[in-house]
């Protein structure tokens, strides 16, 4: 029987790692993710998880150790956030290029400067071009589930890409909620043993990994990463379906809430989706036709799902906790790419909000709604809007 425990998302991530049985965990503590390796080191010390726990001196080393272990052929895990993830940056490309199915739990946190330990998505969003798969959790249960799903997808032979699962700093990492811990036997059935087909070390089968590629081969190697990302679309759907069958919880790349007759659809990710669902309920009581679409999967970018979503609404209001300077938010770019050649498309209005842990309140959402409603009425609005900005101190 699955057990229910009240826990923080950090603990949920550690539990997910325990259930996935990685052989090597390498991690460096960083706020807000420190509890993840701490909890895992307890599991290892108590003999509940049979794994090598490598204490490293930086995140660059943590991910490097994971690359080494994964290249040797075992399941690996690490956790980080913010500057820590940024410090892993160059190795993230290597992990994806070498097609190593490493999984990272990321407590989504703002990037310096100024130093800020609170939530936004700039850390993982900034790594969107590394080739890693990206999942975003709305709550602590999703943090646990998505890590298991991430392994399932990452290790699929058609994918073989590393994956990161983001959950919002403090809002989730340090907040307790009841979380269902699935049965170990079921997780074992779901994930199975990791059996690497290409990337493993065996003296009887000498290979060179992390090779040098001259211009004659580099493009093809990069293309295979592209192709693997494309393949991941279907594999993710299959993993979601299997997860639902085994554990009863349903996941979709884009989860829709009250979108069927919506004129304005808010699009968002992570824990903010929970807030916006509440907000939409509140608006619906007033007869305002709004809905929410939550991006559970951000990479590979679910282009087809976005196109289907776009057919339902007159205005897509993107609520993002990240900035792509001089452009808007990353979602704004991605949605534009998905819809640019569609013959009929909704207006897309971008909202940047909640950076560095700034609370996103109903009042902020009212501000966004007012702009989205103007767009709905055909009035001119800015494409990019900073919500909740304290203009008086600028």
């Amino acid at each position: 029987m699955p057990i229910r425990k009240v826990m923080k998302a950090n603990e949920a991530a550690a539990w997910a790692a325990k259930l996935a049985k990685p052989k090597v965990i390498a991690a460096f503590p960083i706020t807000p993710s420190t509890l993840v390796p701490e909890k895992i080191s307890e599991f290892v010390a108590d003999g509940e998880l049979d794994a090598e726990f490598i204490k490293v001196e930086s995140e660059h080393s943590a991910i490097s150790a994971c690359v080494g272990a994964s290249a040797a052929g075992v399941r690996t895990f690490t956790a980080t956030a913010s500057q820590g993830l940024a410090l892993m940056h160059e190795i993230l490309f290597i992990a994806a290029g070498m097609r190593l199915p490493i999984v990272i739990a990321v407590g989504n946190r703002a990037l310096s400067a100024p130093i800020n330990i609170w939530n936004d998505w700039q850390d993982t969003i900034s790594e969107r071009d590394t080739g890693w798969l990206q999942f975003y959790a709305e709550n602590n249960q999703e943090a646990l589930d998505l890590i298991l799903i991430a392994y399932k997808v990452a290790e699929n032979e058609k994918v073989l890409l590393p994956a990161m699962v983001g959950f919002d700093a403090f809002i989730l990492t340090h907040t307790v909620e009841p979380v269902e811990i699935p049965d170990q036997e079921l997780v074992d059935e779901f994930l199975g043993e990791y059996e690497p087909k290409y990337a493993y070390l065996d003296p009887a089968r000498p290979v060179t990994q992390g090779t040098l590629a001259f211009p004659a081969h580099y493009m093809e190697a990069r293309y295979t990463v592209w192709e693997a990302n494309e393949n991941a679309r279907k594999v993710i759907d299959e993993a979601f379906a299997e997860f639902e069958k085994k554990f009863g919880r349903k996941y979709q790349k884009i989860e829709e809430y009250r979108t069927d007759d919506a004129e304005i659809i808010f699009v968002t990710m992570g824990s903010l989706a929970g807030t916006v669902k509440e907000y939409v309920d509140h608006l619906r009581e007033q007869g305002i036709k709004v809905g929410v679409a939550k991006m559970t999967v951000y990479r590979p970018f679910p282009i087809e799902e976005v196109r289907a979503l776009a057919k339902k609404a007159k205005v897509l209001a993107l609520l993002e906790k990240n900035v792509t300077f001089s452009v808007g938010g990353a979602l704004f770019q991605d949605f534009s790419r998905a819809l640019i050649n569609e013959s009929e498309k909704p207006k897309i209005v971008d909202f940047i909000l909640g950076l560095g842990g700034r609370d996103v309140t109903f009042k902020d959402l009212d501000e966004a709604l007012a702009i989205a409603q103007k767009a709905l009425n055909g009035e001119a609005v800015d494409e990019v809007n900073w919500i909740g900005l304290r203009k008086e101190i600028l």
Partner: protein
Amino acid sequence: MAESPFKADIERVQKEYSEKMTPGAIAVIPGSSVINKTGSWRVFMPEFNRDKCVRCYLCYIYCPEPAIYLDEENYPVFDYDYCKGCGVCANECPTDAIIMVRETK
């Protein structure tokens, strides 16, 4: 020059590389380092004066490639296929038995 003991491997590597990209660009047959001659971008080359050499092996130890072997009499031999011309050996040599000279064709 004697034929490389890796000749068969090299041919297989070349074939494998040119025909099929493996996931993660793994070289499934060892020996690719044998065909990638890293000495090709050298500008300066070490020139060795056997008379000055005291066989201390500092050059042999410090060569980062390592492109220095020892001959039957334990004198250093430079493998110019892989020597990248960094000059570490010349710097380390206590007797100036190695000097770096601009390489000309």
